[in-house]
């Protein structure tokens, strides 16, 4: 069921009505039924995966909880008969067991994810390696179709296990409510990721009907649909053409590459953030607050800043469960000490700040896909961010020497354009048919731009998959997106601000957006609206 299909909106309407009509203590049950109903609508074949993850994670967390509860009960039962040291020893013993359970449950969950998503990659590369050595050995390919939302619910489950293991909160005892946390349908397709203590408790709780939530949620859904159907599904014609093997086999300019990557940047942003808006809007209509996943990423002033604004929930997850543990781990601490002793205090300080991002962005790269392109892209991002950290003092010195005022709008604009340029390279690496094609495209973008502006003359710009009227429409839509982005960047809460206006203005804006989407959206019989890009992760 596509998020922008009429069937989905009918489904949401029915779920919301039932949600508020049933006794509050059964609201979680409605959501659970809806979540599994939604999941089953995509096919029954992969139900086993989510059921296994749910039951296994539930059992693992409950066992860790039981170990602690039993120990607590034992200590309480013994009262003053045991010393503080004995209590500490007992707790240490229990925590060792908890750690073992934590490792097993996380490894199993991660193992499923890696097996389903990476086995094809490893087998094909292994077979290629055998070919290099002329060994007459071949491992049979394993063709597994990843079940819907595997990455999302696995990461949510791993986060939950780690939070329980670190005693951030108790394990959820109610299997149904836990199953809802794993399978919550609006977010299972493409996130956002969330922690049990933030969202799980909301899902399990009760919610009074709130008119503002209903209104704001619906407006957010409409905004998401606008981004997806008017911009993303239209602009993809350009990026699909420019990045196609057929196009790249012929003669092309760097300007066309840039145009294509610009289109792809808007496509991926509008598709992903549009989908997230729909997800958050649906959840908000039921009084559930999901984390924000995008914050005007095109206004980022550095790659690090970009990743703080893009897919924020993944960044938060990586920060909590990968970045900080690496930063604070013994091996990295020891390495940092050695670096400080050998190269000075600064080196000691930046070693963990370089290693941790390298690991995080490598993982983010392969989270998107286990191919050499995603691996290279992950490393590319990692190198830029790590080197930025390492070279920050040098950049500050350079600005000082050149007398550049870094607090001005013009400098900020330069930073945004620079960041966008770096991002373009990243996008090309990922989107090109192969790494070889990516390198050629990047080279052309810088060396064979289009000195006579041939591409921009005589209407040639309208030969890249989108004609003049569609291009004009795209321009208008992107301007709308930009205006809203600028307002939000300046701290304006759009929906709350709209709510304060006269009802005619309010209704006019919403109905104008609705009409805009209905007229200009890429949908309906005859269109091939692409599925959400991030749905395959």
């Amino acid at each position, binding site marked *: 069921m596509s998020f922008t299909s009429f069937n989905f909106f009918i489904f949401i309407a029915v779920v919301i009505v039932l949600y508020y009509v049933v006794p509050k203590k059964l609201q979680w049950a409605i959501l659970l039924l809806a979540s599994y109903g939604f999941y089953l609508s995509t096919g029954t074949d992969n139900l086993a995966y989510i059921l296994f993850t749910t039951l296994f994670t539930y059992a693992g967390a409950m066992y860790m909880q039981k170990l602690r509860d039993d120990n607590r009960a034992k200590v309480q039962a013994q009262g003053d008969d045991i010393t503080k040291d004995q209590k500490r020893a007992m707790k240490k013993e229990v925590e060792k067991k908890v750690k073992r359970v934590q490792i097993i449950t996380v490894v199993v969950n991660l193992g499923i994810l890696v097996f389903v998503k990476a086995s094809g990659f490893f087998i094909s590369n292994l077979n290629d390696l055998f070919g290099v050595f002329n060994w007459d050995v071949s491992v049979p390919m394993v063709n597994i179709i990843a079940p819907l939302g595997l990455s999302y619910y696995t990461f949510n489950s791993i986060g939950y296990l780690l939070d329980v293991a670190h005693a951030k909160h108790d394990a959820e005892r109610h299997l149904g409510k836990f199953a809802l946390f794993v399978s919550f349908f609006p977010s299972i397709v493409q996130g956002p990721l969330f922690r049990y203590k933030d969202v799980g408790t909301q899902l399990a709780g009760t919610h009074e009907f709130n008119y503002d939530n209903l209104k704001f949620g619906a407006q957010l859904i409409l905004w998401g649909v606008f981004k997806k159907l008017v911009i993303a599904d239209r602009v993809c014609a350009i990026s699909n053409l420019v990045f196609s093997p057929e196009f790249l086999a012929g003669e092309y300019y760097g300007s066309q590459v840039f145009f294509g990557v610009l289109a792809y940047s808007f496509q991926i942003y509008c598709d992903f953030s549009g989908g997230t808006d729909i997800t958050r809007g649906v959840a908000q209509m039921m009084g559930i607050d999901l984390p924000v996943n995008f914050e005007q990423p095109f206004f980022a002033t550095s790659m690090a800043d970009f990743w703080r604004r893009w897919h924020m929930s993944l960044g938060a997850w990586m920060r909590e469960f990968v970045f900080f543990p690496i930063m604070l781990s013994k091996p990295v601490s020891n390495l940092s000490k050695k670096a400080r002793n050998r190269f000075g205090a600064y080196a000691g300080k930046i070693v963990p700040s370089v290693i941790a991002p390298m690991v995080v962005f490598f993982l983010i790269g392969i989270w998107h896909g286990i191919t050499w392109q995603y691996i290279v892209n992950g490393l590319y991002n990692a190198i830029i961010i790590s080197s930025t950290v390492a070279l920050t003092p040098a950049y500050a010195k350079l600005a000082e020497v050149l007398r550049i005022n870094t607090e001005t709008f013009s400098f900020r604009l330069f930073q945004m354009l620079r960041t966008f340029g770096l991002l373009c390279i990243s996008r090309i690496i990922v989107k090109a048919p192969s790494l070889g094609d990516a390198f050629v495209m990047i080279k052309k973008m810088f060396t064979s731009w289009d000195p006579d502006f041939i591409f921009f003359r005589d209407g040639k710009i309208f030969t890249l998959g989108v004609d003049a009227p*569609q291009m004009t429409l795209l321009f208008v839509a992107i301007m709308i997106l930009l205006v809203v982005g600028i307002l939000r960047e300046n701290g304006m809460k759009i929906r709350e601000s709209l709510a304060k206006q006269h009802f005619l203005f309010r209704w006019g804006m919403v109905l104008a957006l609705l009409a805009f989407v209905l007229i200009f959206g890429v949908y309906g019989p005859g269109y091939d609206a692409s599925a959400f890009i991030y749905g395959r992760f």
Partner: protein
Amino acid sequence: MTKKQIFCSIGFLFATCVVLYLLCDLFELKNSTNFARRFSTYRDLHEDTVDAVLIGTSGVDRYWIGAKAYEEYGFTSYPLSTGEQPAWLYEYLIEEAYTYQDPELLILDMRPFGQDNVDEVEMDVKARRVLDVIEPLSIYRLKAGLKTMKVMHETFEDKPRFDISYLLSVVKYHEQWSDDKYSVEKNLFERQHKYLGFYVNKKKSIRKKPQEMVIYDPNYYESLDPVAEQAFYDVIDYLKENHKDKKVLFYLSPKFLTTLEMGRMNTLIDMLEKEGMDYVNFCETDENGQFAYDFGFDLSYDFYDGGHTNFYGADKFTGVFAAYLDEKYDLPDRRNDPAVKEQWDGIYDKIKAKIPELEAEAQAAAALQSQMEAEPDDQYDEGEEE
């Protein structure tokens, strides 16, 4: 929810419906603008001024000059026809007819019951021509959309059971905004049919394509398409339940039938006789191979293709059919009714005046004339109605 919130919600939903209505009005099937004019003009006629309504395909609006029948006999009649109108939507067209007028005579075209219903695109187009033009804010429009979904789903396995585009036309046609030929002004403002439903086209009204007579065999039978057959029984049941006091006449306008069509019409006639329904078959021929009814057709001059008369043929046909209706049914003479005179007087003269204009234009483009003769019959490209 507070009272204010409830009122706001209702108000907003109402405003949303208005927007949807306007959008559906703006976007419709490309040549439905012509059909839309026919239907919107019907809705604008003065109340209780229509004595007979004809429902059906181009076998109605290419043949029947209601304005001529009014001039010569005084009764008024209006065609609610669309291209290849599907029989399964007849009930809703009849409801449309009786929502705005109270005609004592209903004339139903027999051609739809002889149609094949096997091509998904064709069926879709035929249905949408009707759905796009009947009153959008009506229960019968909703029922027509739901019935179309049912028929399409039952006929074609891959069609979904629910397709919102049959209820909200903007879902289907919104991409027309980028079409050069799409005109907001035309869709919104050019809503009047100049000739009270009679089809006038600068090419087809004056095109002359010689035809060879087909000998009609009343003893040759072919079974109806299942969808058409079911539609027949649905219509009969509907008429018996809702309009048993009205006079109903099924009719088949003169065309050059294929063997299959002839066989199906004979089957249909048997079914009509069994149900006790009146009918008139203008395709019947005598033993000399001439039309049984004396239309005075010149077969080299009066048809633009095997299934349609041009203006000349329509003029002759209307003369005969109007006389038939005047004799058989006690229809009023409204030539002194001011409400009727206001909208009907002079229309036939307007049509007659238009034809020589079209002929002059065609003669001025002689090369176009010879190209017209070579053009294959295009059932779907109606071209522009005048």
